[in-house]
């Protein structure tokens, strides 16, 4: 029997859990834990420069690896700084365990120094949370936290730990539980066979089918099965922003992303479909446009591990609750059974007509390439993403921040593999990109990791350039600089007659090249299209350097297509500044 203090138990439990990195920041309430980590813990700790970055880095790590990200912060401001990152992970269903220090038990409720009700503040943005009351409960609580965070629909779990429970002189028996059973937590293990049979039948009877796959396919490691299903039936596939990479982006059957800034052919196909199979997607308002007008002729099969996602926004004709892997496996088997009976399924001539229609849409208003607004030396943002794609051979991990650059990256970098596209989709958190890229690079040091960002977003967590220096995380930052908050400006152009309320910086931006250099990195400024490709190649040639590529782009460009809202349907889009469906 081994006796450990609370702090030592935490260090040991993280080892026993197989944690690869702890992202955190020390402070008063967690000093016992840090001392235990310092003395004896095999798990390396990454010291960020702001707790928000710790959560985003853990989040990036989790998205890229599929394993829970781990965060350690102190009480009060340490905990509240972590909130934005926890909310980001919650909205995108990312597994994460956040250990937060708390003031000593006897001080709780007394407005003690650096006290905040972390359980209360984080309640609406966690999958679950634990307030530790007894040191001896720590191993079981930590095991439960990892179990809850990583099973079912994943999400962040907070463990709030009062300082006195981690003190070095109070030792208790340590035994780490291998398994955990909770009477009130049992995520679905498989889908309902009857429902899956019905789905197979409906799917094979479809004349204008669309496979609509979201982040759940990536989180549930269902990409291979989804691809198998699509290839077997030759059905078109669209991915949500969160689902990019779930189906190979360069495949002919891929219609591109759907939704507000989705591809024309993807939105048109959805609107005209007679059968939509939604897999691990949640009919987000950035997908559906006006819900009452959503895909009027379509029967909907909805597969999701979270029953609350089904029929929340759009009623499902065939709801299936279960993990994407087991449901798709069973669905494929049922399809085989039906096709053995009737090899004519699905109707090939109907499918051929459907593909012909889709190809016509694709040819008429497919993704824009080239210059939109007259001749100029200025670089178009899309060209930067295309260059990034060429130089990285389409095989990089790409993180992004939030705004126009995020949409350009989503549109112009076709991801062929899951977990390569790392962005804050649900919460839309500016400042996510750089810390997330750190997390990815630490997980995969030999892979190329690019952070596509803008001058607005990058400044929200720019301090992490220092962390990158300390841990030598050689990510490449691609800063699409148009000197505006681009997406805000786009909306102001479209809806506020070009009144740029607080969306410009009035020549106050830093010299990003010098800034990168000040942090010990390399900065490259690119102003002309002719220099772009060479600079991109040079940046990626510096394998062990963080390179900040500051690219001046055309500030007038908007992201298109763009759903016409309010009152529009999936098929109602702006295709350019003066062209609409």
């Amino acid at each position, binding site marked *: 029997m081994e006796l450990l203090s609370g702090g030592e138990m935490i260090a040991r439990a993280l080892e026993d859990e197989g944690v690869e990195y702890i992202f955190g920041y020390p402070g008063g309430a967690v000093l016992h834990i840090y001392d235990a980590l310092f003395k004896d813990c095999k798990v390396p700790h990454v010291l960020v420069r702001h707790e928000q970055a710790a959560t985003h880095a853990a989040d990036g790590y989790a998205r890229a690896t599929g394993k829970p990200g781990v965060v350690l912060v102190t009480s009060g401001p340490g905990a509240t700084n972590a909130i934005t990152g926890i909310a980001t992970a919650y909205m995108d269903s990312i597994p994460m365990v956040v250990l937060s220090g708390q003031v000593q038990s006897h001080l709780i409720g007394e407005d003690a120094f650096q006290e905040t009700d972390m*359980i*209360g503040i984080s*309640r609406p943005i966690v999958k*679950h949370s634990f307030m530790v009351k007894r040191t001896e409960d720590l191993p079981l609580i930590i095991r439960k936290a990892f179990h809850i965070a990583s099973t079912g629909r994943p999400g962040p779990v907070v463990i709030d730990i009062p300082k006195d429970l981690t003190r070095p002189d109070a030792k208790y028996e340590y035994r780490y539980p291998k398994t955990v059973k909770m*009477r*009130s*937590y049992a995520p679905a293990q498989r889908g309902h066979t009857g429902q899956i049979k019905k789905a197979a039948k409906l799917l094979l009877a479809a004349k204008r089918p669309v496979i609509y796959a979201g982040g759940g396919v990536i989180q549930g490691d269902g990409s291979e099965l989804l691809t198998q299903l699509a290839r077997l039936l030759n059905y078109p596939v669209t991915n949500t922003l969160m689902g990019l990479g779930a189906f190979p982006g360069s495949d002919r059957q891929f219609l591109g992303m759907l939704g507000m800034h989705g591809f024309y052919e993807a939105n048109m196909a959805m609107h005209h479909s007679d059968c939509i199979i939604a897999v691990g997607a949640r009919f987000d308002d950035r997908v559906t446009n006006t819900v009452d007008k959503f895909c009027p002729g379509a029967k909907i099969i909805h597969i999701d591990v979270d029953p*609350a996602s089904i029929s*929340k926004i759009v*009623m499902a004709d065939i709801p299936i609750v279960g993990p994407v892997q087991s449901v798709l496996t069973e669905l494929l088997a049922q399809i085989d059974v039906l096709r053995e009976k009737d090899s004519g399924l699905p109707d090939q001539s109907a499918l051929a007509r459907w593909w012909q229609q889709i190809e016509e849409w694709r040819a008429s208003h497919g993704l824009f390439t080239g210059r939109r607004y007259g001749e100029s030396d200025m670089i178009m943002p899309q060209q930067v993403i295309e260059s990034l794609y060429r130089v990285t051979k389409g095989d990089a991990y790409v993180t992004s921040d939030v705004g126009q650059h995020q949409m350009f990256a989503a549109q112009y970098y076709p991801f062929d593999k899951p977990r390569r596209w790392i962005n804050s989709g649900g919460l839309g958190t500016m400042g996510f990109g750089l810390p997330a890229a750190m997390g990815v690079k630490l997980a995969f040091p030999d892979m190329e990791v690019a952070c596509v960002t803008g001058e607005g977003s990058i400044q929200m967590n720019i301090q992490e350039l220092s962390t990158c220096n300390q841990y030598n995380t050689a990510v490449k930052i691609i800063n699409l600089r148009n000197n505006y908050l681009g997406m805000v400006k786009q909306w102001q152009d479209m809806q506020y007659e070009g009144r740029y309320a607080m969306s410009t910086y009035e020549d106050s931006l830093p010299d990003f090249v010098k800034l990168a250099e000040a942090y010990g990195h390399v900065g490259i400024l690119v102003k002309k299209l002719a220099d772009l490709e060479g600079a991109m190649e040079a940046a990626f040639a510096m394998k062990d350097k963080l390179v900040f590529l500051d690219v001046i782009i055309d500030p007038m460009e908007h992201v298109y297509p763009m759903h016409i809202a309010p009152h529009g349907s999936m098929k109602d889009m702006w295709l350019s500044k003066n062209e609409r469906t």
Partner: protein
Amino acid sequence: MRRIISMLMENEPGALSRVVGLFSQRGYNIETLNVAPTDDPTLSRLTLTTVGSDLRIEQLTKQLNKLVDVVKLADLTDGAHVERDMMLIKVRATGAVRAEVKRTTDIFRGQIVDVGPTVYIIQLTGTSDKLDAFVAAMADAEILEVVRSGVAGISRGEKVLSL
């Protein structure tokens, strides 16, 4: 439609705030709320009433079920059930009204549980409608204070909400 949703939840600190928080977080209303320990000390039983369309109630029950502290949940209004709300009401009881209050209390099968020179405290148990009707019937008396327990409910027959 009015619904009575009853659940067993872990008798843990914070469990109640998760349930209540869910309502404000997702824009639902709680009309009544009643929570107390059960015969199993590890479980609390929480019963609440709310109003919403079928779709909204379905979404609400799914969200409640997702809470890790909620062990089991039932919508009692799905089937036959018994529901009770308990009210303590303090009224001014002087002059002619004093006798009238007593008579009305008897008609409603309530009990006067405290008698003062100028006030009565009346205890009344029944459905929420019955309690509302009693309050309406007291219109001529001066109502000083009303306290209600919120609805508690249980399904009829063999149907049981237990582990």
